[in-house]
């Protein structure tokens, strides 16, 4: 082992984290140094070329989810902007532009993937999440590792290679990846609660197309608050749970949908309230609320559209989520 200060490190790849810090891989003359920077501390992990058994890259569908979210966001924003007069539609135009830029960036970066580096005792996830870049870097690393180890002659390997698998992921050092071990401890209770509340919100929105009442709106707000709490707990618990990835993704989609509906709905409410006869109500949230409760959707096309959209989309997502959660619970009870 060399004295560490004598090493010269060459940067191989780097990816910034959304909330500050970055993940990077640096190359020394006999090992890769994986640097995890959270903004205020750096942690180092060394992987010697002679110890690396495999580099694995799995193509994921995350880029499609991003594309759908950004695409739908852009469409909804432009659609809303089309129905509103200038300059009230400015926030929607800005949102639409932002979503379009994000859609373009996602399309330019290409398909997503998950990559990991495997040694005899552990599997370490790498930060390479875009296929184009990951393939280019893996190609470079393969050359470096093969210079150290020599080329593996696959024709001589007749038996299955000794990488054992457990619960859908490469078997790994429990100390390193204890979080990733899937379990059936969580039964999906928060998911059931969350999707039930979401379905109730959908029903309430459908009802408000025909009749507007303070009690309905207050119930809807309480459902949103309770649902949001249940959703946070569901998202927290689903991470290590053995539930299907489809259900997990559906929960994330539901969260995004609620977020979009709430933001767009709030902006619209403020715009409509500002156009009312007494614009001073904008300074009082309770008055805005009461003002909107008394509006008839027939007179406000966007309000009508919002209620229909929320009702249909929330119903679809929540029913799908409920079916998936119940099938997970059935599978769990069988086990």
């Amino acid at each position, binding site marked *: 082992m060399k004295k560490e200060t004598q090493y010269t490190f060459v940067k191989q790849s780097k990816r910034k984290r959304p909330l500050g810090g970055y993940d990077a891989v640096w190359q020394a003359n006999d090992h890769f140094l994986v640097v995890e920077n959270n903004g205020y501390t750096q942690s180092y992990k060394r992987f010697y070329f002679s110890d690396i*058994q495999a580099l694995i890259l*799995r193509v994921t569908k995350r880029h499609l989810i991003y594309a759908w979210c950004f695409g739908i966001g852009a469409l909804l924003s432009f659609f809303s902007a089309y129905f509103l007069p200038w300059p009230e539609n400015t926030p929607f135009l800005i949102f639409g532009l932002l979503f379009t830029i994000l859609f373009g960036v996602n399309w330019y970066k290409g398909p997503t993937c998950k990559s990991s580096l495997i040694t005899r005792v552990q599997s370490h996830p790498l930060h390479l999440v875009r296929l184009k870049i990951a393939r280019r870097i893996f190609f470079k690393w*393969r050359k470096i590792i093969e210079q150290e180890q020599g080329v593996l002659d696959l024709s001589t390997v007749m038996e299955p290679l000794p990488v054992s698998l457990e619960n859908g992921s490469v078997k790994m050092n429990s100390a390193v990846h204890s979080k990733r071990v899937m379990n059936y401890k969580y039964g999906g209770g928060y998911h059931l609660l969350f999707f039930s509340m979401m379905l109730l919100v959908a029903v309430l929105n459908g009802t408000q197309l025909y009749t507007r009442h303070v009690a309905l709106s207050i119930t809807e707000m309480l459902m949103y608050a309770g649902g949001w709490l249940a959703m946070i707990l569901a998202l927290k618990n689903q991470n290590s749970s053995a539930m299907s990835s489809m259900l997990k993704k559906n929960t994330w989609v539901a969260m995004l949908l609620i977020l979009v509906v709430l933001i767009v709905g709030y902006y619209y409410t403020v715009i409509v309230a500002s156009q009312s006869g007494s614009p001073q109500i904008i300074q009082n949230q309770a008055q805005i609320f009461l003002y909107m409760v008394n509006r008839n959707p027939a007179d406000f096309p966007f309000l009508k559209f919002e209620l229909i959209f929320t009702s249909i989309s929330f119903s679809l997502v929540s029913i799908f989520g409920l079916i998936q959660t119940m099938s997970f619970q059935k599978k769990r009870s069988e086990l």
Partner: protein
Amino acid sequence: MFPCPECKTLLSINERNQDGFNICPNCGEKLILELFSALTASQEASVAKSVSADDESSCFYHTDKIAVQNCDHCGRFLCALCIIPVKTYHLCPTCMAKGKDPTSTVTALKSHALHDSILLLAACVSVMFGPLTFVTSPIIFYYIFKYYRKDLGLVPRMKWRYWLAGIVSAIPFFAWAAMLILKA
């Protein structure tokens, strides 16, 4: 053959599609597998032999096993189970856990505090404290001088954050000082 990370189905490594992917026939997972010689080398499992004669040295950790090597750092005798090869050196589990370097007294660095970022944050936060910057700014200056010349971790890092932290903590300090002097 290599097991699919998703469904454990054994995949034929040589069968790749034209894009260079191994596709699992069971779950349809698209994979790229880069395998190296260390994978086959690990199949040779280490077996520790038992001590059979009195004159044979035994392992420090397993007294009934023959010692076959000694730790390059602490010199303890080790059996085949306890040897941890690190590059060309052999370490015992204790030295490995402590991160000892056999060629020098330097400990292998596992983590490093980024003093420049911490000081910059402290400088920005201390601005909000108003006149208290008379106390916080000298402390920040002290730490800037203390850490500026020290090594900033293993990988190269620019020092502009120290400069910025110094400027951010200096401005309110001198502003308050000027205000107090003018008032006096």
